[in-house]
């Protein structure tokens, strides 16, 4: 109960600030926090990246293991994306099976990669119908200060762009790197009292009724979208959010991928 009041006060503070055109950390509405991408941080993984957006800290590791293909796609590799909201990262996270937020995050990241056809899955076939590479994308949240999805998606694509296929480990031969065809980037905006803000921090996320993640590709096409939150959005707000998504996505791609 006490916590709820604190929460309300925090929301009001964020909204009051925004009404006067400001954000708590002094950023502009269309400005990201500082982004930092460190690659190949986990030697046990075939690809990995640690992405920090402000205080948000996400570690993504990608492992490849041989496995059976899906019956309806016998010649293609398999992508399995999983997110763990470990309780280390946030007082809001609890131990236990993935909740709806971590499921949603994993599925949105997964959708962006699939939609863009970034990974050439046909190249991951080892033996048609029998054995293909399973690509496990594991998203491990370390510190949750908001906008996990952009950090996770960036970590996932950054990891994938630098995969060492572990052929020798499994007595196989074949290409050593994973040819990638696109570099999807997720950009999340929120709507607070009619204002559109990119890269919400934890308090802004809580103060916002609606959030939209827009995933765009190198050629400016869209490969995924997800609205969340218990509010509604106007058509023109969505248009603005999509435009920001494509623009900021381009900047991040340019700089970090």
């Amino acid at each position, binding site marked *: 109960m006490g916590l709820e009041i604190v929460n309300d006060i925090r929301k009001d503070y964020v909204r009051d600030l925004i009404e006067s055109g400001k954000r708590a950390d002094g950023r502009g509405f269309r400005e990201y926090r500082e982004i930092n991408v460190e690659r190949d941080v986990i030697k046990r993984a075939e690809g990995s990246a640690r992405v920090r957006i402000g205080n948000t800290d996400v570690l993504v590791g990608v492992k490849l293991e041989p496995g059976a293909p899906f019956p309806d796609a016998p010649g293609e590799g398999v992508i399995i994306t999983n997110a763990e909201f470990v309780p280390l990262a946030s007082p809001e996270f609890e131990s236990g099976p993935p909740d709806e937020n971590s499921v949603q995050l994993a599925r949105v990241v997964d959708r962006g990669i699939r939609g863009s056809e970034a990974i050439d899955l046909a190249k991951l076939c080892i033996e048609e119908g029998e054995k293909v590479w399973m690509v496990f994308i594991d998203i491990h949240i370390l510190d949750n200060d908001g906008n996990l999805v952009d950090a996770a998606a960036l970590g996932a694509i950054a990891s994938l762009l630098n995969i060492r296929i572990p052929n020798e480990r499994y007595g196989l031969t074949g290409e050593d790197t994973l040819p990638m065809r696109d570099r999807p980037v997720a950009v999340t905006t929120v709507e607070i009292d009619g204002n559109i803000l990119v890269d919400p921090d934890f308090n802004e996320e809580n103060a916002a009724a609606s959030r939209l993640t827009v995933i765009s590709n190198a050629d400016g096409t*869209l490969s995924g979208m997800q609205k969340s939150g218990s509010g509604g959005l106007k058509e023109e707000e969505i248009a603005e959010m999509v435009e920001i998504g494509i623009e900021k996505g381009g900047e991040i791609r340019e700089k970090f991928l």
Partner: protein
Amino acid sequence: MKEGKEEIELIKEGKRLDGRGFDELRPIKIEVGVLKRADGSCYFELGDNKVIAAVYGPREMHPRHAQDAKMAVVKFRYNMAPFSVDDRKRPGPDRRSVEISKVSREALDPVIMREYYPKTAIDVYVEILQSDAGTRTVGINAASVALADAGIPMKDLVSSVAVGKIDGEIVLDLNAMEDNHGEADMPVAMVARTNTITLLQMDGRLEKEEFERGLKLAMGACHQIYELQRAALIDRYSESVDV
């Protein structure tokens, strides 16, 4: 999902395989108040989709520590019957249904006057009895009517439909064949009276312009569905005909 599928021609001579035009909905059938035990219910058909929704509440919220002191908590459970799809679905929630339940709840939240019933729960249950693509949008349509049937105070109904891209064209309301072999799928939910979007997801690949066109197409269709939802409720309550 969209990769590795065989090539199938989905549009022939300007018509889709089931004979529909690009902007045409599948046939819709709505029945209100079809269940006795639920506080509100609705049976909703869209083409070969058969969906039933029930609403219970406002009622006591368990566990107590999950109560909201200021408003009702809406819980939404999307569930597919094991026989609703070609390959039997194992009973119980999976990651897909967890996500759909979440976004569906968030699609309805904006119209439910939750502040009227602090500390309570409003339970919305959607069962997919037969599936033919677009089930989440049918579930939202059914749930919206069931909420009204349960007498839950709402600002308005929510109406929902998907648009997609097949054979390079933006079309309305994909069926399963089109969804499996298409290039993009985008479910939308909307409060018709205010043109407020409450659900928006996109899967596949779209140009920005295609997206904008698709959104408009969906919004128009939501208006059509809204009229059918209203008519079903008026039918039910003016004539008090039991279905």
